[in-house]
């Protein structure tokens, strides 16, 4: 009895010790991400999480999915309170995270697996802070059948002249078709795509960069002329009447389904919504999707110039107590195989080095083939204006060039004056 009692005591003690050791080894990394409603991206990331957990027994990832606005608001308070997750979603324009020392230096990752320009987008004072998962270019999508029906020919180089583009707008309008689906009901940037794609072509990347940073005046005649050209397009009826309140998801549907628009100016992440099943807002199965370049701009010095941007990325909390595990998790993304899986699943470009020729899905392969053609010979400017601007210039830019100017409720002169005064 006494011996049995001792044995039991020893067994229990060993059990407790084993449990305590296991508990000490088990680690849970917290992970907050945007893309709650963007299923392909979410499923891709969830697959990577499972892969990491399988390779690292004892370490689990507790993922929480948000929509972007709610995520950003939550992160601002959580970071300040020292309660932010180990890993979270961010975009490179959020320099305030780096300025305030909230992000972990990710120099320890294998950056040879990342496109140099993508690393550059996340490099701050010589150190890389974000894993650039999502990359995108500005694309002008169009309905090929509708375009044929109007008798409009997209040239071989996929870039219409200013006159041909205006002719297209007028022909569409005459047939009761909205020439371009755009809406700014819930986003601070879609309306401004018109302006920034035109300005980067007219000014070239260097002067365009100076303009956004307040080193070139918005009263520059080249800027004013370009805005007048855009105004002539909007006055010809380029945009839907619901432009001011049309939300991003609704603009997608407006383009491909109801009522149907001729073109749609959007980031190449178009696929993350449009390639969803039809009942989840995706485009019709046989939708005749075409992609062309933004039209040539009168007086442009660089019609091949266009915007490329790093979008959704993952960063690590500088105060994480699990640095080694965090770096290991982020490192799981860094392989050509995972990059190709992103292309296949999400059908958007990535900052991870990939080989698009290995994409097997026919829809994705066709899509990347079109993207490749429109981007042939392109000269890129990195980031859309709201990723470059901060503070008041950014707020004024959103109100003026995302909303009021394309809606036609402010003159070119007033728009220029307001933006110039914001610096």
């Amino acid at each position: 009895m006494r011996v049995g009692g001792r044995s039991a005591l020893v067994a229990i003690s060993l059990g407790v010790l084993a449990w305590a050791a296991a508990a000490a080894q088990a680690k849970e990394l917290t992970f907050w991400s945007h893309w709650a409603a963007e299923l392909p991206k979410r499923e891709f990331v969830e697959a990577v999480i499972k892969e990491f957990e399988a390779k690292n027994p004892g370490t689990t990832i507790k993922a929480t999915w948000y929509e972007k606005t709610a995520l950003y608001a939550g992160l601002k308070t959580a970071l300040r309170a020292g309660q932010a997750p180990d890993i979270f979603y961010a975009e490179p324009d959020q320099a305030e995270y780096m300025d305030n020392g909230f992000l972990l230096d990710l120099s320890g990752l294998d950056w040879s697996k990342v496109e140099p320009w993508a690393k550059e987008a996340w490099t701050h004072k010589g150190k890389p802070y974000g894993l650039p998962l999502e990359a995108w270019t500005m694309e002008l999508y169009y309905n090929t059948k509708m375009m044929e029906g109007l008798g409009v020919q997209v040239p071989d180089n996929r870039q219409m002249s200013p006159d041909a583009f205006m002719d297209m707008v007028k022909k569409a309008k005459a047939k009761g078709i909205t020439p371009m689906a755009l809406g700014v009901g819930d986003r601070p940037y879609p309306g401004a795509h018109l302006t920034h794609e035109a300005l980067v072509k007219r000014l070239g990347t260097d002067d365009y960069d100076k303009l956004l940073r307040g080193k070139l005046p918005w009263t520059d005649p080249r800027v004013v002329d370009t805005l007048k050209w855009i105004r002539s397009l909007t006055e010809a009826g380029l945009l839907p009447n619901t432009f001011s309140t049309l939300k991003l998801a609704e603009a997608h549907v407006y383009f491909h389904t109801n009522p149907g628009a001729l073109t749609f100016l959007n980031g190449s992440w178009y696929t993350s919504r449009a390639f969803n099943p039809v009942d989840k807002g995706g485009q019709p199965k046989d939708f005749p999707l075409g992609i062309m370049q933004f039209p040539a701009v009168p007086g442009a010095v660089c019609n091949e110039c266009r915007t490329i941007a790093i979008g959704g990325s993952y960063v690590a909390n500088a105060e994480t107590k699990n640095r080694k595990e965090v770096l290991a998790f982020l490192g799981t993304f860094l392989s050509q195989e995972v990059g190709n899986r992103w292309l296949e699943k999400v059908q958007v470009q990535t900052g991870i080095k990939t080989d698009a020729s290995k994409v097997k899905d026919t829809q994705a392969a066709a899509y990347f083939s079109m993207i490749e053609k429109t981007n042939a010979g392109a000269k890129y400017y990195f980031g859309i204006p709201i990723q470059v601007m901060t503070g008041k210039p950014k707020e004024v830019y959103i109100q003026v060039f995302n909303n009021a100017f394309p809606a036609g409720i402010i003159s070119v002169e007033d728009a220029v004056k307001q933006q110039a005064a914001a610096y």
Partner: protein
Amino acid sequence: MGEAPAHRDDGLRKPWGTIVAFLLPAVTIYVALTAYPAVRTLWNSFHKVLPRRDEYVGLANYVELAGDEIFWKAVRNTIVWACTSPLVEVSVAMLLALALYAKVPGARFFRVAWFTPVLMSYVVVGILWLWIYNYDWGPVNAALRALGLGALAHPWLGDPATALPSLIFVTSWMWTGFNMVVLLAALHSLPREVIEAAELDNCGWGGKLVFVILPLTRATVLNLIVLSFIGKMKIFDLVWITTKGNPLWATETVSTYVYKRAFEWTTFDLGYPSTIATVWFVIVLTTVLAMTWAFRRREKLEF
């Protein structure tokens, strides 16, 4: 004789332990959730409040605020909203309450129907009215087109000239029912003998309304106006759901601007948003005290 004062002292001795025990929870909650945040906001307004470091900037935030055009646009919009909406809400509510008081046919149905909007959240109301104001298929423009007035069809929330009035209309639609119910209760509590005396004096409906009903419900009306005014000075939800302050800050309110500066501008600084909140608190408090003082000269207000 000599012991009497001692007895009096014993009787008057306050049970401090009990008092503290009862007050402590409420005082703790008040200090933690109201007093401290208010004092801290005031303190923040004199600082640049960044994570892990605060930097004293004196009156710099106040000086910047004085020249902040967006803030003054937001102030103007909020004041227009707070001054017009209560008047519309309360006057329409009085008409509806009088109709129900007079027992119009279907009064029971109308009482429920008119009160229903206040039961909905601003989120639901915002989405509902985004549809109603939709340019292409919203009922407002559809009705105009059906009546042959298609030229008047309008992007109601997309035009700076109509965006704010359109939102003011929504809040009036939403809150009129609440005011109506309160006024109806006030009407039902009017002293019957006064009404009967007026009727004995051959006072018609108009006379009863002007000389009896309105004077007797004056305190309720003024309370409702002040409450509505305070509510509109803080309006946030509806704007955030529908326009986010667009277009061209035509619907920007002070609350939405504070939120944008605190959480949407690419900065962690809470000093400047705290300055806006402090200045606005002073303006609202002063206005409410002035209204109270003005109204109290004739009526006692309770809110």
